[in-house]
């Protein structure tokens, strides 16, 4: 982690009619930082992520991601981030290699760099020999690791992961976190949501949203001391219930 801010959010407000989904959010995320973005269902996480990814405009406030303003240059943001979720990942009826080629092309990589990155990333996952397999029949854990590799293929500065480990077995879930650590050590900023509270403990920083507001933001260790709780799970229950 360095001191350079990659995400800067100031007084972000998003309203849908009379409903305020994001209520004056202010926070910064540094280069290489792993931020756990937590909150109950309906707390406003997805709304905030959509704005940070440049696919939804804020009602008011300042949002900058990877040096680009979310209102003025949302297209620039899209080129500089990676995104994966349980809901949207890869194409089941394409092979592993075809998925990499497709997404590499969408990200505007040259043929040569697509070939190099595909080989490099698949070898790191020890899946290179399976590159011509159709995705459909592969285990979910493989698919999630592949989806993550595709999301970092174009060397994005920020990677957004929306419940990336949902339903994944406990061993693969942890292997997935090792991929997150590696990406963070390469200087990528990781923005991750999860319902597994043990995973929140692996983050450098956690943000806790309740009813559209950020109620707690900081290092897991410090927050646990501050609120006098043993785990982030207890912290979550304490804050979300109030």
């Amino acid at each position, binding site marked *: 982690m360095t001191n350079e801010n990659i995400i800067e959010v100031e007084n972000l407000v998003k309203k849908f009619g009379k409903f305020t989904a994001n209520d004056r959010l202010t926070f910064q995320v540094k280069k290489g930082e792993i931020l756990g973005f937590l909150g109950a*269902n309906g707390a406003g996480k997805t709304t905030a992520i959509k704005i940070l990814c440049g696919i939804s405009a804020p009602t008011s406030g300042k949002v900058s991601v990877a040096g680009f303003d979310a209102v003025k240059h949302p297209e620039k943001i899209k080129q500089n981030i990676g995104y994966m979720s349980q809901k949207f990942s890869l194409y089941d009826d394409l092979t592993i290699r075809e998925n990499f080629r497709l997404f590499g092309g969408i990200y505007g990589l040259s043929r040569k760099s697509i070939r190099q990155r595909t080989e490099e990333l698949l070898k790191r996952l020890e899946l290179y020999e399976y590159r011509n397999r159709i995705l459909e029949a592969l285990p979910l854990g493989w698919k999630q690791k592949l989806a993550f590799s595709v999301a970092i293929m174009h060397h994005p500065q920020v990677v957004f992961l929306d*419940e990336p480990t949902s339903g994944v077995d*406990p061993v693969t879930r942890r292997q997935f976190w090792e991929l997150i650590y590696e990406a963070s050590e390469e200087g990528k900023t990781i923005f991750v949501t999860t319902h597994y509270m043990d995973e929140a403990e692996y983050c450098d920083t956690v943000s806790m949203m309740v009813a559209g507001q950020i109620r707690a933001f900081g290092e897991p260790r410090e927050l646990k001391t501050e609120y006098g709780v043993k785990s982030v799970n207890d912290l*979550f*229950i304490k804050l*979300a219930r109030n």
Partner: protein
Amino acid sequence: MKAAEIHNIHKSYDEVKALGGISMQVEKGEIFGLIGPDGAGKTSLIRILTTLLYPDQGQASIFGMDTIRDFKGIRKIAGYMPGRFSLYQDLSVEENLNFYASIFGTTVSENYHLIKDIYQQIEPFKKRLAGRLSGGMKQKLALSCALIHKPDILFLDEPTTGVDAVSRKEFWEILKNLEEVGITIIVSTPYMDEAELCDRVALMQEGQLLDVDTPANIIGKYDHELYAVESRELHQLIKDLRSFDKTVSAFPFGDTVHLATQEKLRRKELQKFLEEKGHEGIAVQSIEPGIEDCFMNLMRKQNDE
């Protein structure tokens, strides 16, 4: 009579084997958990038990009724809440509930006591279309509809997946209350921590049973020494612990790493090893395993076979 008897059930979809010969029994009145990740075969098993799917091989019965021959009998006494919301989105909350009551030949008022605690939370929105409810409210409506004919046995397919930690806790409190009324509950979940809330569990992985027992017995069968190890650099700690010669496995668990070893460690030995690797703030504590430790241990053994 057993609530469910399952003998050697096989099920495949083309080349994908969903269930590879599963046998187990569920006692009347218990909360029985099917615990495992996606692809373990939980949904296939529930769909077979609820008479919605034929097994390729093997038999199953619910309260003595065969899932193929006596499917009508089972449907009368079973409540089922599928993983995907499948009520009528274009009917209101109230209309959905009345509809489910009427197809089972009962009325909402007759069994209202059973759903009162759950339904009260969504009753203020009873005129709203089901499709326009939040995730948590849909879940409560689906559970109300599954209960409205006072089933003897309730099947819940991943009711807490994608649900936040607070709502999950509330949902399990509801299940405990239903157990007290005498309803047998078969519930599937990918969250290992929920196993400890069940009376007995089946640990499932890729269509196979890893074990079936009470959570306490499963923990009792764990056959390694387990330590919670801490230092400032979690990722480096995992890597270094894997290079320690007595390590069987090292995995992060919240803010510590769980280190499994074949034999008891002298704590000083590990402390010294980690100090030499440059770790600071080292703490080593001998701990009891949880279900997730056991699950991972059983997975590793299955892979070794």
